[in-house]
């Protein structure tokens, strides 16, 4: 597995720049997830506050607004737990280069949701992240400097 990890540079070297971007994004997500874990993100209804504040002015479709106000705000603990879990999953996956494609799709969903419930100050950031996750999934960024290459070599398929 270790040999495959480094060997990937030789065979899919064209993905090397995007792998650095992947690892950087993984580190970014890890830092933010740890900050949330150590802080009061899970114990205080910050996410409910955020949704209540920005949802009325959001560009989200009506069904999402109804879902967010009827389900997400009252169950903010569950929402906060899922967000944090997905952030950790994206972080570990991107740093290790493991199951990057499906996890990047999770990242796309996370960014879409954050885009709907965050204020205009964060709109550009989440749009950029959305595009990056999408590209990660498209090119299969885990195949270079990542564990995905080991499985890709043996099994092929669209998940690696």
């Amino acid at each position: 597995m270790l040999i495959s990890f480094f060997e990937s540079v030789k065979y899919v070297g064209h993905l090397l720049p995007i792998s650095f971007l992947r690892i950087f994004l993984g580190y970014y997500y890890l830092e933010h997830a740890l900050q949330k874990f150590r802080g009061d993100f899970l114990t205080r209804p910050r996410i409910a506050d955020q949704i209540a504040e920005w949802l009325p002015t959001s560009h989200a479709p009506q069904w999402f607004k109804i879902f967010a106000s009827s389900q997400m705000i009252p169950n903010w603990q569950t929402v906060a737990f899922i967000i944090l879990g997905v952030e950790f999953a994206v972080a570990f996956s991107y740093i290790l280069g493991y199951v990057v494609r499906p996890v990047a799709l999770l990242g796309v969903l996370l960014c879409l949701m954050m885009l709907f419930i965050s204020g205009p100050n964060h709109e550009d950031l989440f749009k950029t992240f959305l595009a990056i996750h999408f590209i990660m999934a498209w090119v299969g960024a885990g195949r270079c400097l990542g564990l995905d290459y080991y499985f890709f070599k043996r099994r092929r398929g669209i998940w690696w």
Partner: protein
Amino acid sequence: MKHFVLFVTVVFIGLSLALLNRTNQGGDLAAVPILRVFGYSTFTGRWGPGPLLKASFEKNCKCKVEFIEGSDSGILLQRLRIEGESLGADLVIGLDQFDLSKAMSEQKWRNLSLGKLDTYEAVRPAFSGAYFVPYDWGQLSFIARKEGSSHFPSKLDELLLPEYRKKLALQDPRTSSTGKQFLFWVLDAKGEVQGFKYIEALMEQAHSFSPSWSTAYGLFTSKQAAMTFSYVTTPLYQEIEEKKKEYLSLKFEEAMPVQIEFMGIPDFCRNCELASQFVNFLLSSEGQKIIMEKNYMFPVVKGILEKSPFAAILPAKNLQKFKVPPTSEVERVLKRWTDIRRNTLN
């Protein structure tokens, strides 16, 4: 796909275990009752009176005080309506007179029992309600810089002079409580017909209508605007906290607006007795002093601000009378303001 499901499962199990471990470490706290106070962030945050009030109350109550933050006072009611009981609030702090009617119609509140208090005349009528009790109050006016001008407006009409064109940093009354105070001040002083004509003319004078007091105030302190609508204690805050003596609050001929902040115990409270104790603590000399010094608002109870710098600026006369406008009236007035604003922009 199997790898992906396994990976995500492992991450979530890991996170759950880490959380479980953290909860166990704090297990000894479980036996202590927790009073949850829901308030706006400038009250509950580290620069506001919240942390000092918490520390002082926890000394004697054998309990723990936790603050639930709402980003702005305007958002408190919205959160209460949406989240209701799941918010877990035992006490709500930071409603003003424009919120009371709406709060009463949307939530059930507990009767408050208070001891006898010697209060200021300006806030005495606000103590007549059974469900909400005031804990501080402030007078609002325009704040200007001393330098660069020898003459300041002393009545509302003077704000329409050409020299103030695009110079006033105002707040949007739909999102800001100070913005609402200004709008109702104008309507009270001039009557509704003349008042809205005045507001129409004032649109040309406004540098901007910010969504919150802090944004408008920021425009003023960064010298993008010549005046802003704020609390009369603002110059004192600048003098004590920022060591700046360049601001002054203006006196107007019209009766000045007064904002009174209230607290109330929602019917779904869990530690209702503790909430009631906290209400009484906030009205005690100690609580009132902390609120005055950290929130830069006047205490409602007499005998606190004497011998403090606040005594010199305590307004005694020419104040608007306290009233609670019904929700329908507030909404109608705001709709009219929105129409005027839209016409100005078009």
